[in-house]
């Protein structure tokens, strides 16, 4: 059996297959479909200091090979998470990683501080890339200066593994990755959704209440893959790759491009068991190609 475990800096994962924030609820939504403990980790729903109602309906528009969403970080706030959700999910026997978002640097820091003592949350994913909120979110992730500032502030209070989720809506994602690496990020995860829009031609109206939203699904995979490749050649910290992963081949491609681990997002909606199929597909691939460890594949694209 090939080794599947990987390390995100100090964080040991039993395998590189994880599920992306905003597509996997708190894990409980999927417990009827899969054995959650087989996953390398679960990135739970975007969490903010205060409760957020999210955006108005409609929040979703299907596109060719993907979808646009404009959920807008609907969540009950970090205190609710700590007191009411965490107790129900802490025994999943996989890493629970909380995706942290905010409108100000102080928000990010205050939200993070409430998560430090949770034993089964060994890492947070700093979301500086949500395209669906008016303030904060993506605004932090689209300039090196603001990305560095928020990472620096959170790093100063958070001793555990700090993953920063990058926005693809930038001219050069490597620059942002370098900026957050230099402020002490342990890892970068990429990419979040691409800003897009959809129009109803008959009604002459936008399909989303917010007009624009975040595009995800297999339609973004080639761009996400290219960005992982670029960032891999720019930074030294491990990369968590995502963007339209639907099967094990996609996952292997991201690892070859430089990802140490991967997150499965939108395709969980179509096949709630896909994460386990991908895990088994990776195992089979490693056996077939006689690799001793999945780490032997990271960035090993032959060019």
């Amino acid at each position: 059996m090939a080794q599947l475990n990987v390390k995100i800096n100090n964080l040991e994962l039993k395998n590189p297959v994880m599920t992306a924030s905003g597509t996997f609820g708190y894990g409980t939504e999927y417990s009827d479909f899969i054995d959650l403990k087989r996953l390398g980790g679960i990135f739970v729903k975007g969490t903010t200091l205060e409760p957020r109602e999210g955006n108005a309906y409609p929040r979703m528009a299907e596109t060719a090979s993907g979808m646009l969403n404009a959920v807008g970080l609907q969540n009950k706030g970090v205190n609710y998470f700590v007191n009411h959700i965490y107790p129900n999910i802490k025994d999943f026997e996989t890493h629970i990683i909380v995706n942290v978002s905010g409108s100000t640097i102080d928000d990010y820091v205050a939200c993070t501080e409430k998560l430090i003592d949770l034993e089964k949350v060994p890492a947070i994913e700093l979301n500086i890339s949500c395209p669906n909120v008016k303030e904060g979110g993506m605004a932090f992730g689209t300039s090196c200066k603001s990305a560095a500032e928020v990472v620096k502030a959170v790093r100063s209070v958070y001793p555990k593994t700090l993953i920063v989720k990058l926005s693809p809506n930038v001219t050069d994602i490597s620059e942002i990755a370098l900026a957050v690496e230099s402020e002490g990020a342990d890892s970068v995860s990429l990419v979040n959704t691409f800003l897009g829009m959809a129009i109803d031609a008959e009604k002459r109206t936008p399909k989303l209440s917010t007009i624009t939203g975040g595009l995800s699904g297999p339609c973004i995979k080639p761009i996400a893959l290219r960005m992982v490749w670029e960032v891999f050649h720019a930074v030294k910290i491990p990369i968590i790759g995502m963007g339209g992963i639907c099967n094990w081949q996609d996952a292997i491609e991201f690892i070859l491009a430089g990802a140490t681990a991967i997150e499965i997002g939108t395709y969980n909606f179509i096949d709630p068991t896909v994460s386990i199929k991908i895990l088994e597909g990776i195992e089979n691939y490693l056996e077939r190609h006689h690799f001793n460890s999945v780490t032997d594949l990271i960035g090993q694209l032959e060019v």
Partner: protein
Amino acid sequence: MLDMIVRSNEQLNYHNYLLKVTPVTNVQLPEMNPGNFVQIEVKDSVNTFLRRPISVNFLDKQKNEMWLLVQDIGEGTHHICQTKENDQLNIILPLGNSFTIPSNLDLERRLLLIGGGVGTAPMLFLGKILKDKGFYPTFLLGGRSSQDLLQLDDFEEIGTVYCTTEDGTKGEQGFVTDHTILNHQHFDQIYTCGPKPMMMAVAKYARENEIECEVSLENLMACGFGACLCCIEKTTKGNLCTCTDGPVFNIKDLLWHN
């Protein structure tokens, strides 16, 4: 999640198809209740990415068959409607909550089931369950034209059926809420499913006449099981997911009157 085989696919009118499906492997279909829906995977369609939510039309436990009434309304549903006998479909089921079945101690309760267009689909399953419990349901079914009224024979086996059509080709001319039965008879409970303007009109009638009323919503959704938070409906209890908190809502909880 089950792989299902299409036992039959019958075209009921110009754009509605009745599929009867059963599990590929020898497993019993899970318990399902009226109001539940399923998510059907659409394969080989360039512009369709997500599953298609379809309400359960009927559950034939003896034959281990589920009936799905599907309207050919876009590329995704078109693919489903074009499936042939013995084709396979991957289906997530059962999803969502269900209509409230009144207590058996209250069999005199007068129940009105209002369906519009393909929204009549869950009313057949609901009517059958109510009849099996000892109730005698009344159906009020609406469509644009006589050919839009589906499965009338099945409904007539279960209860009394009244119809409206917009062109007057069957039943009374007009919308369901124009039907004279609403002036002549009193009902204690209304269940409805159909186009949103119709359900809003039914809800208004129910509110004005202080009748308990449940509606089945069909907000756009991605997953169907509470993960994506796309299908929210604003309610007195905040944003609720149509897929897991619904699709059936009591009108008292909705903000439609605002």
